[in-house]
């Protein structure tokens, strides 16, 4: 049975969905937000590694809701938990680390600035940094971002300081600053979506060290669950429905989006009609939803007449090295290693573009420095290793004791992940999730240029770590991908033949359908994209509010 029609139905409550809910609610429109996961409260966020990080508190179980993942079209699909973000109100912003970088002007003009890349489908964005900048300001202000802007060669223009001063950092940050100075590089304070002072009724960070992969019981982490969603609900115009899994978006005879069919928290199928439907379920899951929404009008999936839905999938290129300092050996030289401060918050962007053409394509990326995550089970399973090289018994315990004597500094690379014809999302009709919905099938074929650039960045990061004279340096990865950062599957553009969405993230083929998660991004940039997704969603909301008031988007 169909529910009463609302103005807007938004699917997803994360970085993309929440800004839309807030702005449309503020403008007086009746909004329903469907969220597949539960609505956790601050008291549900406990420092319990088993609950948070090793079970289905955030991520679905691979036998209940798998993603199929393969390397290349000739690879064999494996069931995986990869490419899920948290399933709960707030989505991935709940368990994020909150590295709130902005993209840089060059990211909007990658192809025209650096040229085409054989084997990649990179495209310029239809909008410029200058068009998005006011909405970066707004997103930073609404969510709460702590940081300090400093001048450097690739610094993006800003209209003013961050809303909040930077978080306190561990003394090791000063050593990184010095090492960078010697090399002529710039050690940048990393902006964080974590509030350093009381802000908008929220309590500041308690420096507990468990940000990434945990929810914040203080509400200091600027997930949409702690910031935008409560504000949206407070408008009185936004109804949040957790535990509701969207199956399809239905269309009417004219090919306009009509309603969302979803399974509610009691397992009952419901239909929510709306004048405008906004999809924001992550780049992978939004593509899946559209591809599963078939009709006589859209036989290969909603808004997919171009065949581009799910194509041009982009993650973030990942590399990492770890420097271990043995406390017992370093006690005299660096007594401050014992300082419990959890934040390092230093980044290097001197190689955001490569110094020359040596690798063919001049896009580099960002290095972010941090302590390794303190989760002990995660650390110990890493120490145990896997396969034939794994250890157990005394060897394992010796490693655990050595770990107790260590502080481990690492960097992560956020590198460009070039879109290729070989990286895409489809649906696999033969494999269904626990709701009976065909699951997303992900094929990844990396562009070789990414891997070369990521290795280059790892080597630069290691130069910094080595200057700190650690007791050990270990390279963890030069060829990974960060699948929680996902983009591209409904890219936006001015040409309906080469893009799914227009510059306002409205589907070219369906005038009242919007997609506002990372799907719109034709290139992913070389920083975590959370803030960009939120900023863009504020931009789209501003457009949509105007259009609705003029009676355009809803067809009047």
């Amino acid at each position, binding site marked *: 049975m169909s529910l009463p029609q609302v103005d807007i139905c938004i699917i997803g409550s994360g970085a993309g969905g929440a800004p839309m809910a807030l702005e449309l609610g503020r403008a007086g429109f009746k909004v329903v937000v469907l969220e597949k996961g539960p609505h956790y409260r601050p008291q549900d966020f406990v420092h319990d590694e088993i609950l948070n990080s090793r079970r289905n508190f955030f991520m679905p179980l691979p036998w209940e809701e798998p993603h199929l993942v393969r390397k290349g079209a000739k690879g064999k699909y*494996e069931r995986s938990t990869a490419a899920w973000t948290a399933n709960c109100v707030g989505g991935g912003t709940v368990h994020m680390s909150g590295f709130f970088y902005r993209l840089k002007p060059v990211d909007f003009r990658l192809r025209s600035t650096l040229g085409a890349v054989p084997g990649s489908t990179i495209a310029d964005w239809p909008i410029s940094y200058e068009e998005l900048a006011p909405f970066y300001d707004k997103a930073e202000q609404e969510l709460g971002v702590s940081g300090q802007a400093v001048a450097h060669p690739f610094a993006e223009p800003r209209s003013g300081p961050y809303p909040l001063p930077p978080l306190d950092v561990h003394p090791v940050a000063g050593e990184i600053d010095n090492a960078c100075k010697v090399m002529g590089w710039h050690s940048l304070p990393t902006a964080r979506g974590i509030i350093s002072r009381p802000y908008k009724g929220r309590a500041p960070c308690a420096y507990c060290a468990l940000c990434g992969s945990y929810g914040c019981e203080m509400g200091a982490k600027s997930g949409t669950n702690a910031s935008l969603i409560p504000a949206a609900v407070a408008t009185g115009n936004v109804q949040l429905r957790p535990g509701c899994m969207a199956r399809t978006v239905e269309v009417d005879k004219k090919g306009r989006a009509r309603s969302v069919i979803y399974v509610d928290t009691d397992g009952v199928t419901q239909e929510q009609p709306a004048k405008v439907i906004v999809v924001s379920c992550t780049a992978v899951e939004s593509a899946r939803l559209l591809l599963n929404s078939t009709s006589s009008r859209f036989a290969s999936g909603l808004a997919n007449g171009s065949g581009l839905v799910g194509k041009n999938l982009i993650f973030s290129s990942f590399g990492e090295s770890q420097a271990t300092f043995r406390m017992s050996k370093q006690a005299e030289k660096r007594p401050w290693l014992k300082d419990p401060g959890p934040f390092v918050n230093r980044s290097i962007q001197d190689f955001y573009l490569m110094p020359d053409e040596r690798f063919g394509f001049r896009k580099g990326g960002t290095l972010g420095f941090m302590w390794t995550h303190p989760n002990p089970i995660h650390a110990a399973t890493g120490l145990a290793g896997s396969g034939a090289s794994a250890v157990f018994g005394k060897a394992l315990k010796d490693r655990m004791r050595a770990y107790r004597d260590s502080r481990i500094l690492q960097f992560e690379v956020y590198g460009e992940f070039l879109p290729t014809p070989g990286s895409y999302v489809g649906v696999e009709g033969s494999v269904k999730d626990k709701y009976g919905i065909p699951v997303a099938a992900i094929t990844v074929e990396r562009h070789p240029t990414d891997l070369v650039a990521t290795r280059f960045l790892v080597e630069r990061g290691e130069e910094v770590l080595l200057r700190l004279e650690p007791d050990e340096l270990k390279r963890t990865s030069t060829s990974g991908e960060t699948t929680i950062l996902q983009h591209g599957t409904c890219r936006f553009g001015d040409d309906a033949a080469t893009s799914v969405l227009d510059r306002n993230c409205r589907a070219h083929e369906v005038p009242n359908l919007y997609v506002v998660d990372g799907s719109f991004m034709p290139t992913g940039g070389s920083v975590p994209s959370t803030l960009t997704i939120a900023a863009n969603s504020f931009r789209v909301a501003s457009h949509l509010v105007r259009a609705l008031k003029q009676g355009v988007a809803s067809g009047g």
Partner: protein
Amino acid sequence: MHPDAAKRRALGYARAPMPRARPPRQRLSRRSFIRRLTFLGGGVVLLGPLACKRSSEEAPKPAVDPGPLGTAPGGQRTHTFSSFELAVVAAAAERILPRDEDPGALDADVPVYIDRILQTPEMQPMRDDFLEGLAALERRSQRMFQKGFSAITPAEQDELLTLFKDSPPRSGEAHFLELLTVLTLEGFLGDPSYGGNKGKVGWRLMGFDAVGTIAMAPPEGYDGPKCLRECGVHK
């Protein structure tokens, strides 16, 4: 007498004569799993190796609890393992983390943790895999040493576990060893409310939640298993 054998006896892991009857399981099957492609700081590595191939039609059913099957030395009733199986689990976990100058798996009540965590309804695939692997370990011990796993010497136990570890990457044997390692570490280093990490001995060994280190543990009185049971049914 080997000191470890004495300890086992002192800790009271009795050896029952026969495993309790179970419905026949398929032989250890090839498992397909994929390492998570990404980071997320804290390692949202869901169950490590457990992204198993499984038909979606075969939805996990809640465990039918026939009542306690056995009793752990601490008096805890077990619901996944019989007393016999518990002795094998205890012997195997203690080889993963043997007591030396620091506490080992048994000191932390790791077998109690494994017994309890495998009762989580969603964990049925893992429970089945673990019990299959345990039976395979016992069979192999009988074949190689003409004795059950908990009766052979620690050196023989290590030999057998190493054989499992070095089995082909996707074999059932390698899968079981990885499961055993992961569950032992969870029981050693997880929140004590799950039944393991008794006296927080695991956290002390790793330097987690000790004075001057970096992260805060859950408050006293926290009930992890209750939250785990209720997770996903918040309304």
